């Protein structure tokens, strides 16, 4: 039963199992266990970033191609749902319509980019996705009468998902069942389902072919698999999942803008999460995303305290300034690529395969 749900891909490590269960249970009960908006915001962010990072791992970790356009697809999802709700009013069919538009646009774009660059070299793909993504981000901010430009767009969500909505009058465990809570669980359940879908994909024969391509594209080709077809498929699948993540973020934030979805900073975040968590394992993406976002929220505070404590020493306070947290994650990132390419998961599983 559990094997069927997890597609036979168990964590294979006691510590990892505990960590994953802790993440799952933690995300499931956050709205009831920890009061306040900060905790539930962090939890929701973790949920949609898990989907985003998992879909990126499908590309980077399983297929072995580096894309810098993943934040773009995330943004297409966010803008698709966001702009539809903004333009057509807050109803459920509009959300589905927005999601559908986002999916179509993203898959067409992914296909075009893939066909243009995946047949040549992996390195072309990295550069071309980078160029296309920055052009897209600029276009999105330029057409400001349509997209809201730099400011982005705030919009209203259907009645049921608004903070003012009450499912019933009473309280459960001392917490009122508001629309916000329903939105959270919508995001949470979608994240769990999409994660299981991704797990299914990578453990299917299709996923095995992707891994074969990652290990040795020539050999995969020689065995009769059309490498370009598989790479393009993986690119489209990952793009589609990123669109779903974008839609989730739009519903949760009730806002969509360049800084929360399209920017290169988000792309770097995704990259760091995948590599620090562990490339080529879906569970790594989960751990990486969770750790990164928790660190983003709490490490900065810690660094602020450390910076204040080291005041007077020449360079240290500047190094420990809360805005410099990316410096340490960057160093950690480089070290993980060198010394443990399978990331945290690789360490936990104790495997030696690179």
């Amino acid at each position, binding site marked *: 039963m559990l094997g069927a749900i997890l597609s036979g891909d168990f964590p294979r490590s006691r510590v990892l199992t505990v960590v994953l269960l802790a993440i799952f249970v933690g995300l499931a009960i956050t709205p009831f266990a920890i009061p306040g908006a900060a905790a539930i915001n962090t939890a929701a962010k973790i949920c949609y970033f898990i989907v985003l990072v998992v879909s990126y791992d499908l590309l*980077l970790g399983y297929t*072995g*191609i*580096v894309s810098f356009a993943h934040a773009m697809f995330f943004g297409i999802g966010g803008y698709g749902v966001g702009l539809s709700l903004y333009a057509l009013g807050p109803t459920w069919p509009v959300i589905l319509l927005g999601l559908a538009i986002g999916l179509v646009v993203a898959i067409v774009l992914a296909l075009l980019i893939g066909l*243009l*660059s995946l047949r*040549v*070299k*992996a*390195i*072309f793909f*990295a*550069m*071309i996705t*980078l*160029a*296309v993504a*920055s*052009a897209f981000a*600029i*276009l999105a901010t*330029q*057409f400001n009468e349509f997209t809201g430009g730099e400011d982005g767009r705030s919009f209203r969500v259907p009645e049921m998902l608004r903070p003012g909505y009450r499912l019933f009058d009473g309280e459960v465990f001392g917490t009122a069942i508001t629309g916000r809570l329903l939105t959270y669980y919508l995001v949470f359940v979608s994240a769990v389902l999409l994660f299981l879908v991704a797990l299914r994909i990578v453990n299917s024969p299709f996923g095995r072919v992707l891994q074969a391509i990652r290990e040795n594209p020539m050999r995969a080709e020689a065995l009769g698999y059309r490498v370009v077809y598989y790479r393009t498929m993986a690119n489209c699948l990952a793009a589609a999942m990123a669109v779903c993540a974008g839609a989730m973020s739009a519903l949760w934030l009730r806002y969509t803008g360049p800084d929360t979805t399209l920017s*290169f900073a988000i792309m*770097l975040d995704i*990259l*760091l999460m995948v*590599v620090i968590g562990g490339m080529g394992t879906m569970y790594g993406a989960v751990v990486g995303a969770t750790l990164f976002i928790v660190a983003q929220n709490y490490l900065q505070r810690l660094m602020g305290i450390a910076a204040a404590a080291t005041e007077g020493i020449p*360079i240290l306070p*500047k*190094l420990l*300034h809360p*805005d*410099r947290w*990316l*410096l340490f*994650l*960057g*160093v950690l*990132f*480089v070290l993980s*690529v*060198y010394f443990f*390419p399978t990331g945290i998961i690789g360490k936990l599983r104790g495997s030696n395969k690179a």
Partner: protein
Amino acid sequence: MTSAPATTASDAIPKVRLDLLPILLPVAIAAVAYPLVGNLTTWLTLTIAALAMGMMIFVIASGLTLVFGLMDVLNFGHGAFIAIGAYLAMTVLIPLSGWTQADSLALNLLALLLAVVVAAIGTGLLGWAFERVIVKPVYGQHLKQILVTMGGLIVAEQLIHVIWGGDQKPMTLPTALRGAFTIGDFALEKFRLLAVAVGLAVFAGMMIVLNRTRLGLLIRAGVENSEMVEALGYRIRRLFVGVFMAGSALAGLGGVLWALYRETLTASIGGDVMVLVFIVIIVGGLGSVGGCFLGAILVAMTANYVAFLAPKVALASNILLMVAVLMWRPQGLYPVAKR
């Protein structure tokens, strides 16, 4: 020894036919743009601006493309050298503000030259460290190269914040380079002229080194087949490091020019140019210096004309240019043999 007249090397090697078709492209673009712009002065100004921008991009991109050609390393951290070069120049120019504000061309240029030299040496040394620490362990592994050099870029950008602070810095042009020469109602900005001159000098210098010297011969041979060069007893590793340092120094030089052109400076300055640089080296053909030169002019022309005609889609038009070139020649304008 036979007494037969020795065939000189140039006779023995068949001359490579110079491929002129891509060279006509910028001319064609300029010709198409003229009726669209419609005004001779505007068109001339745009074209000169495009040439200046193209030269700056070329200076930055040439190092990157050569490093790729020789070592099969694509350095995503190249942008860091652009930013660091610009910051180093700023650090030199601030105490020299007496010289840069003086009303003397010689003193202005001297200050600028000093700044450029410091920037180039600084980024060259940094390039050496970058090669040793970041790139060396991952030769031959493309995926890891992309990731690690990207990581290097993140760290370098953060260190710039630590050392110079994160706020936007002004980068003032020396007095003598401000303003423009006017010929009739056509204005020719002095700094653009300087940029074109520097770019042409770098291009000429690279061409001479690559085609007329022993070092250049080795580099070209290394691009074609590095194992063979190594088998002949040359230390290709040392050549690698040298080219990497030169490429980084060029990026630093380009960064100084670019920052002076924009007249402001932020830590993310490298990232903005890198997108254009990547388009340029893809269009030109990875590893080809000539292609890079032509690609830079093409990209800058498209960017400038489109920015005038339809400002919102300037970068997107460059993507279209790249797509069009790749449809025509999938390996870029001047494909390098091995790849």
